[in-house]
């Protein structure tokens, strides 16, 4: 098993002693695993630890795990089990919210793989800042005069830019996976992913500015 696929599935359910396939809950007796609330998001949803994941697949996993972990399913259990269902279910919902969005999934996986956080490394790709400053000015101008079609155009430009960055990030994760598979060191790749992700956050911030906000209310 490679490092990327490592999980913390306990081998057996602590109540019925049957082998467990998923981390949060036993398939047979629906007993919740107390360790689930602390498990990483990929493990919680029973997903491989990789960037390239189909969104419908993530959703399918989320729904099937939720079915037996949700507090409503445990509403007739004892208070301890209900409390655990609440915590585990909250963790699973956090996991789904994080993993279904590609940029958040990339950021989460990056830190899980030992990459730097955005607070530790604020670097951005060369030449990126100049482009963004220009875009920012154009947005400010369009907003000042309320030019809706210009804002729409800028939004399209930014969305294209974001998608391009995300494709590059997907490629870098692929390269990293290969590097690890041949026992190579992937630190440079992780640093590059951080740089690209910082750029994505920047683009997203600008994107939110292109959505006209009501003056008040």
């Amino acid at each position: 098993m490679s490092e990327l696929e490592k999980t913390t599935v306990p081998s057996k359910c602590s109540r019925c002693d049957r082998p467990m396939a998923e981390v949060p809950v036993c398939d047979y007796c629906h007993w919740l695993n107390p360790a689930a609330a602390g498990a990483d998001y990929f493990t919680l949803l029973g997903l491989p630890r990789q960037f390239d994941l189909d969104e419908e697949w993530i959703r399918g996993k989320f729904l099937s795990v939720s079915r037996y972990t949700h507090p409503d399913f445990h509403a007739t259990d004892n208070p301890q089990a209900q409390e655990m269902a609440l915590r585990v279910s909250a963790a699973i919902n956090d996991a789904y919210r994080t993993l279904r969005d590609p940029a958040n999934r990339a950021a989460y996986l990056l830190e899980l793989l030992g990459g730097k956080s955005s607070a530790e490394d604020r670097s951005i790709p060369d030449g990126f800042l100049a482009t963004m400053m220009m875009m920012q000015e154009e947005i400010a101008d369009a907003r000042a005069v309320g030019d809706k079609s210009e804002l729409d155009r800028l939004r399209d430009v930014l969305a294209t830019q974001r998608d391009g960055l995300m494709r590059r990030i997907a490629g870098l994760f692929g390269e990293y996976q290969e590097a690890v598979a041949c026992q190579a060191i992937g630190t440079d790749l992780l640093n590059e992913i951080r740089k690209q992700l910082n750029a994505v956050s920047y683009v997203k911030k600008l994107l939110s500015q292109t959505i006209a906000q009501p003056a008040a209310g």
Partner: protein
Amino acid sequence: MSLILGIDLGTTNSLAAYMTPAGPVVVRDASGNALVPSVVAFGEGGVTVGAAARAHAVENPLATIYSVKRLMGKGLADVGGDLKYLAYPVVAGRGGMACVKVAGREITPQELSAAVLREVKARSEAAIGAEIRQAVITVPAYFDDSQRQATRDAGRIAGLEVRRIVNEPTAAALAYGLGRKGDSTIAVYDLGGGTFDISILRISGGVFQVLATDGDTHLGGDDLDMELIELIASEIRDRLGRDMAFPPATRQAMRNFAEAAKIRLSSQDQARIEIDLGAAGRLERTITREEFEARAAKWVDHTIEHCRSALAGAGLTADRIDQVVMVGGCTRIPLVSRRVGEFFARVPYTAINPDEVVAMGAAVQAGILAGVQRDTLLLDVIPLSLGIETLGGAMGKLIMRNSTVPCQASETFTTYAAGQTSVDIHVLQGERELARDCRSLGRFQLRGIPPMPAGAPRISVTFLIDANGILNVSARELRSGREAGVQITPAHGLTSGEVDAMVKESYTHAIADLTEHRLIDLRNEAGRILAAIDKAVAEVGAVMSPAQRAAMDEAVGDLKAKMEGGDPDALYAAMKAANEAAMPLTQMQMDQVLQKTVMGRKIDEV
């Protein structure tokens, strides 16, 4: 296993349903009626609830309490815009909480809603033939934490263990989607008496996943009634003078006329209104549907804006919606279904009774919680972002809106002074940037922090939103490992001690108080009537015939005698009689230049 009742606690009407192996069943009375008007009347016979209470609204406007849902969990400052819908006085209770003043007593919206819930519970127990102790109660999806807590407290006061607070559009989706196979994305458009919700859900394999919800807790059928009231009022003012102030009884009467006209205009092209203006004759008016729609359009446009926003929150476009389910009495208005149909480019689904579908869905959720509906699961969301006030008065969001519940967020706090043992946290809900523009849910005080130098303690606070959409806070000091006590001061809610006290408080006590207060109020009113009659006699007394004068003198004498007695009913009757006997005087005054001021005062005093 004990039965869990599903209750739709509405602005205008409430009703219940329960789960059976064949599906949800609505509770009905002997004549097939499911709806209990959400009206509480305080009268000489005690507290009445429902249709009987509603019938009293015109003759006793100040003691007939309706639409109390608009006040739930709110401060008086927050309900400003809602007050124009209410004929009864609303005052600031403890901590500025909006309370209703009835016969000199302040009553919380929670207690009033509890009275409605008690009635619904009693009717259900009679219909089902078993005692009910547990319930699932619905709220508008856009209700914030305080409003949800207030609803839960109302249930407790009514003697119900509230197993779940469930969102109305979500409940409707449960009732609609139960037993349907396949994967579909639906929109639930819920326009009720006082609130509007739009929710987008994806239903797959028995899992109901809410993708996004949006709405307005100040938008509903009452607003449409108000448009008609203003239309009627402006025409009355045209006749009787611009400054005409309408006393509570008149406002209540106009409200009833407006509501009846609105309902009529859903099936007819026009509605006729006739109002007795006393001496000024009658107002007869035919309102056409075009006229109504012209006035209603702006409200319907608002709902469409919310639909747009909900779709954006779900990351979908209108063409991705497979079905639009219509909920709430107002969706019967042709203009509403037309506009909704245009927006989603499909004919809305109206096959389920829009008044009953929410209660049926609450019963389904009750079935899930009772363990009898194991193949169904509801994944709902928090409608408004939750955050805390940060330095400089900004709103620091911790949990984003449309997050699936339950969900949690943690934040680490520290102290600003050496030896500081408590930290205050201001919790907010809303989407605006500044704390002052968001709803305040209350201040949480972290206590029991071990004395350390400034900045040394690290207090980790966990904000957990449970499946009800209600916030739970826990805190831990990380360095010492000590659990920090959390004291919650709700901004506009009841503390658990207050709820307990209300649960215990017997209703009989309240009624005794009430009779006493009613007598005092009636005596004051009678005094004002006598003064008005004296004034009228001095001004225009000559217009009366000797017979009229004798009758009036007799009525006045009787009124004076009843004011000394202890019977509020007799006093009320004598007041009415004196007023009627003095009618010729009032009419004369109205015909004169002084008409509007005297008319205003006269009706005020009835």
